[in-house]
């Protein structure tokens, strides 16, 4: 139990995907202009990351490892993730229009996100078991959502702030992201070992 709690804390705060591992920066910069879109993106990412962690674990454990094909992990994971996301999108579109409107365009966007592939590959590297894999993916996504929402809230305030001319636009955004990253590095001392 303690191990699972540690995985969650570690992925959400200490090894945050965006601010410490620098994965998934593209949606972090691109979709964080408004709080609502950031929330939608966070929700969709949580959904996809958890699902893809589970599926890639199953693929790795029951297809690649027995056949000794570990070197095909990257391509097999990309394939599985893309299929799972596409399939879920179709099912959600058919069964739950409300959920589809909330996740909507973000689902296909995330398929090609590096954070999703990273979760699958890092799971294998850390030799996680099934539940740990799912938790690792879920924790990474929660960390991603947390940072997205914080950053979007910051950006909404920066828009109305009096920023010096030369720092306006992308410059102040990048500086903000850097400062946030510095702040998150402070969590490194939270869990020892």
């Amino acid at each position, binding site marked *: 139990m303690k191990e699972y709690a540690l995985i969650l804390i570690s992925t959400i705060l200490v090894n945050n995907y965006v601010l410490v591992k620098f994965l998934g920066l593209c949606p972090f910069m691109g979709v964080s202009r408004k709080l609502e879109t950031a929330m939608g993106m966070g929700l969709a990412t949580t959904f996809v990351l958890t699902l893809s962690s589970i599926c890639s674990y199953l*693929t790795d454990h029951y*297809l*690649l490892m027995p*056949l*000794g*094909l570990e070197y*095909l992990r990257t*391509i*097999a994971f990309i*394939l*599985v993730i893309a*299929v799972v996301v*596409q*399939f879920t999108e*179709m*099912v959600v*579109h*058919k*069964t739950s229009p409300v959920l589809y409107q909330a996740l909507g365009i973000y689902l296909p966007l995330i398929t090609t996100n590096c954070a999703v592939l990273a979760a699958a590959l890092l799971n294998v590297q850390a030799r996680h078991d099934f539940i740990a894999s799912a938790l690792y993916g879920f924790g990474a996504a929660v960390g991603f959502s947390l940072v997205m929402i914080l950053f979007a809230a910051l950006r909404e305030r920066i828009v109305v702030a009096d920023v010096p001319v030369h720092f306006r636009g992308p410059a102040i955004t990048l500086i903000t992201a850097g400062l946030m990253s510095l702040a998150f590095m402070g969590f490194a001392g939270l869990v020892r070992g």
Partner: protein
Amino acid sequence: MFVAAIALGLLAGASGLLLGFAAVRFKVEGDPIVEKIDALLPQTQCGQCGFAGCRPYAEAIAAGEADINQCPPGGENGVVALAELLGRDPKPLNPENGTEKPKMLAVIDEQNCIGCTLCIQACPVDAILGAAKHMHTVIAKECTGCELCLPPCPVDCIQMQPVTPSISTWKWTYPVAEVKTQSAAAEAAV
């Protein structure tokens, strides 16, 4: 090597079958009335109706948010066709959206084009070809005559020219039906 190829092939094949099955099994039917309205609109994507294109306008009509007389390129004939489809009374075009004009074609004066790509970005149907600092030109077959490329051009080198019927494009004119409006009917009664 063969094991790898077969395993990956099987994985890909199974995924393809799954997705193919899902595409049929979980197919979502669009609103059929939107499709029908969209089919009647002229597809100029000009935005004169106040919506981003023909499809959004069709969706707005279906939802009851827009009236049927906001499409100048479709003209009176378009309004009559829409009224017939939706079982409403035809009415004259709303002058706020513009007036009906003969079909025009955008032509770029290639001598003066500076290759700024602004018209390419404005074109809703991707009918302008060209690259930065290279001369642009209009694909006549694709141009819908929406005039959206005129305002962004910094050197005013785009002109609208009426489409002259050639041997390959000539066709019989549509039968013209007089649209009776309420005010016209009232005048006639007086």
